[in-house]
């Protein structure tokens, strides 16, 4: 039963420590008394006996310590004592403690936030069954232009039939639905996906309620079925399970709700709320095409099959198709594969890692700063420490105390940082809803463990650096030199200067990175879109196909009436409709041929971006009409046989001839080119591309972007216009009501987000570095008060003193700057792909960062330097 006795002992020692200590004193006292008694018996006098006994007994305090050292929990006792001592020392300088905690909190908070994001988005496996075997599938286009092209359904069907390496293949495409309101609800535009019936089984996901699609649902003749996201079900249908097997109206058509997906399911992305079988949703004739690339595909590799084997298998099938259809230049010649996770988060990978690296720099700077502050404190307490060491304070003991102090600071900072990270993650979730896998981001146990790790790391780093600065063999020296009142030991200031230089260097790297991103962003935002961006309002309208059949007159009439009424609104200068406005994206292209040109060689094709527009669109959008005229508004349906092209189109396809009057052949119809308009960019980051415009009045399109231009505040027109649409068709939701400025802001959200965060991090480090410089120099000046006093008394000019002190402070900043600029040059190359219109070694950015840093450093050093030059020599000498 020894362990029981030991356990009892341990409990006793933990809770009855005070009593045990009293007993120990008593026990030792008894021993002493026995010794005295013996001495008395040996014939000594009372005083002699007592003295001899004490002499024999030795140092009672030491004896007590040694006995106590054998007790269990001694480590805890010592720890508690160090803790108490640490808290007490820190409480004596609350200003220092608060600053240090704040600095660490910022460093750890930023770091934990970015770690949470990186871990959740990039590192965590996808929440699907056996996600490592899931891959995204692509076609490698025949002209080698697009190695990762989206797939054509006809090709996919052959993959499905012939492959031997995948246990399951599925594909999907975007779908926008008008969800009709019930019982007075407003209609709503909902983003969804049209997918093959086996998308969810391929991922290995079951609906939370109801059933999955069956193969029978995924046919054109089947009844319309739909699966709903957990979020939409809760929000729009109050989470009522009665919705199962009920009918909802999408685009005016009845769909049966067959199931609800589990909460947290977000594929293809978090904005997808409805899923419907693609072969039912899309016109049957589209689904055989080998050339219409419009779907994204995924596959699950069979066990034991590598991605390379899968790709080879699909490529063989694709190549065979290609060779069978040499006349069609759009049939791809190979397949490509990406791991699904890579496919989903590949775009955000680099920016996230750059931001994580930036937060690591911030944390490192924060640690350096705290280490610096601790070194300053250690220096100020040099005499105290020296005396303690002289009196026998163990070196390890002193080190432990120092570490405890920095541990306390780090722990408090870490706790505050975790709170900060919690807030930051929430902010991120609300601002970056568009980021892939954003739904997976949350703070969990691993993040907490990471935080603890950071705290320990910070504590060790800051504590050890400051401890290393005091060497025991210099103790006597430190006692002496403080007594003489001369300057501080050189080793101290050396260490602090190196720390400062490192801090400044890291700051420079952050500043340069931030500067480059900021410049890229500005370049991006100021790149010429080719149209007006001021006072233009855009909104998306989609007419339900059931009531507005295409091709047909219904959508033509609707759009015409709408435009007439909108143009009549007071304040509206111009209005127009197009499929998409500049900056909104690529959307789609179509192949065409020029009737007047010789036929193209077999297997080649020419294609360009393809847009429908009404005759007023160009004026409304401020796209200049360079030659010719716009569409004739009186030509409708089949008679609408005019086309307009942009300047880039003319340059590429009519280099030496007049395109006006020539004809474009497109989908079995010839169109006469009647006008040439200015170039526009489909995306801010891309150069203008050839565009072909076709008349909206042809009636082939029933969705588009309404554009309204006004000379007054255009946002005020949003409500009246929406009211007109409601009056014309009450079951017609309008979405994305945005001014052109907002639309472009949204499209450059990534860049602005990255640039903003980096600027914040860089600003933070700049402040930290400035505080560090200021602190160190103030400290050095205060240590050298006597010396400076003597210099002034001996006739040194105040300007000389000022210059000397200023240079003293600026030297580490200069070293740091040089080292930082060199490191930035390397770092900037790594982030080349994040830059737009900016070279990694942009001279302006580098020079302005250097100038800014020198300015801030000079300002930080100016105050202590000025103070030194204003010293009253008499008083300075007397203070010693």
């Amino acid at each position, binding site marked *: *039963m*020894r*362990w029981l*006795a*030991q356990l009892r*002992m341990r409990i006793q*020692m933990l809770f009855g420590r005070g009593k045990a200590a009293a*007993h*120990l004193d*008593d*026990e*030792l006292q*008894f*021993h002493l*008394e*026995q*010794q005295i*008694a013996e001495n008395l018996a040996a014939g000594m006098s009372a005083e002699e006996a007592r003295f001899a006994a004490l002499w024999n*007994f*030795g140092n009672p305090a*030491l*004896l007590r310590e*040694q*006995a*106590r*050292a*054998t*007790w*269990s929990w001694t480590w805890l006792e010592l720890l508690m004592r160090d803790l108490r001592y640490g808290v007490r020392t820190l409480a004596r300088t609350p200003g220092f403690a608060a600053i240090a905690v704040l600095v660490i909190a910022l460093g750890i908070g930023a770091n934990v936030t970015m770690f949470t994001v990186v871990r959740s988005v990039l590192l965590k496996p996808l929440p699907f069954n056996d996600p490592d075997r899931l891959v995204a599938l692509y076609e490698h286009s025949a002209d080698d232009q697009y190695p990762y092209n989206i797939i054509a359904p006809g090709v996919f069907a052959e993959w499905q039939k012939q492959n031997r390496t995948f246990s399951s293949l599925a594909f999907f495409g975007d779908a926008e639905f008008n969800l009709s309101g019930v019982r007075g609800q407003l209609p709503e535009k909902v983003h969804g996906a049209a997918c093959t019936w086996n998308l969810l089984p391929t991922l290995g996901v079951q609906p939370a309620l109801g059933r999955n699609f069956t193969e029978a649902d995924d046919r054109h003749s089947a009844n319309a079925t739909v699966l709903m996201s957990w979020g939409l079900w809760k929000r729009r249908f109050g989470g009522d399970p009665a919705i199962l097997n009920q009918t909802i109206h999408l685009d005016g058509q009845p769909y049966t709700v067959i199931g609800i997906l589990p909460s947290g399911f977000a594929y293809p992305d978090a904005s997808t709320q409805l899923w419907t079988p693609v072969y039912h949703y899309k016109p049957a004739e589209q689904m055989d095409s080998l050339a219409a690339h419009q779907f994204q595909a995924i596959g699950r590799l069979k066990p034991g099959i590598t991605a390379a084997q899968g790709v080879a298998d699909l490529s063989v099938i694709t190549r065979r198709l290609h060779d069978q259809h040499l006349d069609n230049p759009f049939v791809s010649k190979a397949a490509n594969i990406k791991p699904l996770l890579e496919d989903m988060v590949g775009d955000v990978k680099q920016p996230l890692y750059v931001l994580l690296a930036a937060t690591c720099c911030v944390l490192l700077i924060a640690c350096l700063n705290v280490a610096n502050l601790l070194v300053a404190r250690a220096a100020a307490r040099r005499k105290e420490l020296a005396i303690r060491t002289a009196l026998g304070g163990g070196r390890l003991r002193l080190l432990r105390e120092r570490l405890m102090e920095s541990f306390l600071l780090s722990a408090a900072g870490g706790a505050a940082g975790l709170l900060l990270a919690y807030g930051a993650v929430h902010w991120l979730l609300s601002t970056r809803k568009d980021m892939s896998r954003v739904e997976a981001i949350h703070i969990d146990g691993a993040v907490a463990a990471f935080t603890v790790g950071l705290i320990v790391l910070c504590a060790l780093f800051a504590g050890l650096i400051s401890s290393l600065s005091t060497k025991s063999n210099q103790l006597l020296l430190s006692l002496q030199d403080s007594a003489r009142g001369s300057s501080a030991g050189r080793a101290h200031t050396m260490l602090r200067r190196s720390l400062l230089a490192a801090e400044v260097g890291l700051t420079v790297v952050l500043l340069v990175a931030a500067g480059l991103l900021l410049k890229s962003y500005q370049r991006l935002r100021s790149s010429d879109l080719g149209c007006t961006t001021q006072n233009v309002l855009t909104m998306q309208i989609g007419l339900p196909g059931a009531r507005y059949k295409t091709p047909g007159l219904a959508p033509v009439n609707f759009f015409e009436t709408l435009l007439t009424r909108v143009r009549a609104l007071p304040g509206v200068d111009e209005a127009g409709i197009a499929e998409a406005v500049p900056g909104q994206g690529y959307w789609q292209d179509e192949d065409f041929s020029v009737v007047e040109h010789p036929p193209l060689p077999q297997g080649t094709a020419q294609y360009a971006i393809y847009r429908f527009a009404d005759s007023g669109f160009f004026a409304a959008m401020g796209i200049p009409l360079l030659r010719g005229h716009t569409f004739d508004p009186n030509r409708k349906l089949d008679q609408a046989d005019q086309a307009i092209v942009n300047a880039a189109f003319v340059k590429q396809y009519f280099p030496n001839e007049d395109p006006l009057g020539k004809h474009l052949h497109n989908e079995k119809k010839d169109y006469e080119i009647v006008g040439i308009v200015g170039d526009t960019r489909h995306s801010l980051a891309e150069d203008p591309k050839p565009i072909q415009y076709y008349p909206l009045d042809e009636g082939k399109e029933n969705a588009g972007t309404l554009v309204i231009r006004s000379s007054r505040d255009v946002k005020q027109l949003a409500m009246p216009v929406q009211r007109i649409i409601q009056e014309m068709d009450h079951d017609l939701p309008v979405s994305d009501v945005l001014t052109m400025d907002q639309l472009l802001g949204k499209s450059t959200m990534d860049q602005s987000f990255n640039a903003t965060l980096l600027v914040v991090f860089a600003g933070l480090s700049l402040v930290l570095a400035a505080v560090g410089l200021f602190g160190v120099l103030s400290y050095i000046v205060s240590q050298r008060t006597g010396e400076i006093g003597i210099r002034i008394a001996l006739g040194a000019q105040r300007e000389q003193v000022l210059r000397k002190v200023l240079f003293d402070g600026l030297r580490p900043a200069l070293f740091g700057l040089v080292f930082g600029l060199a490191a930035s040059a390397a770092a900037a190359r790594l982030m080349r792909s994040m830059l737009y219109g900016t070279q990694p070694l942009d001279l302006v950015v580098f020079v302005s960062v250097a100038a800014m840093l020198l300015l801030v450093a000079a300002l930080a050093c100016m105050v202590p330097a000025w103070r030194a030059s204003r010293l009253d020599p008499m008083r300075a000498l007397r203070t010693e």
Partner: protein
Amino acid sequence: MGKPVDLVQGTLDLLILKTLSLEAMHGWAIAKRIQQVSREVLQVQQGSLYPALHRLEQQGWIKAKWAESETGRQAKFYSLTAAGRRQLEGETANWNRLSAAIDLIVTEA
């Protein structure tokens, strides 16, 4: 009589356990007993005795009780536990082996 011999580390534990195997004693008496039995050769310093006693107590080989001493004062009396008795047996055997071995070397070589 020469200088009192410093005890080899670990030997003190054995001596204390052996001394306590006869009867419960307080620290002072243990020191005295060791001194007497060894004919003044072994002198246990307080600086070693009390840490050793406390360590043995923590390990559960001896237990302590406060009782009245011969002078009528309250004193801390240590006695062996069952585990301590087994420990003593083990350590005694160990010691015998060790001292026999040393003896062999010292006398033979």
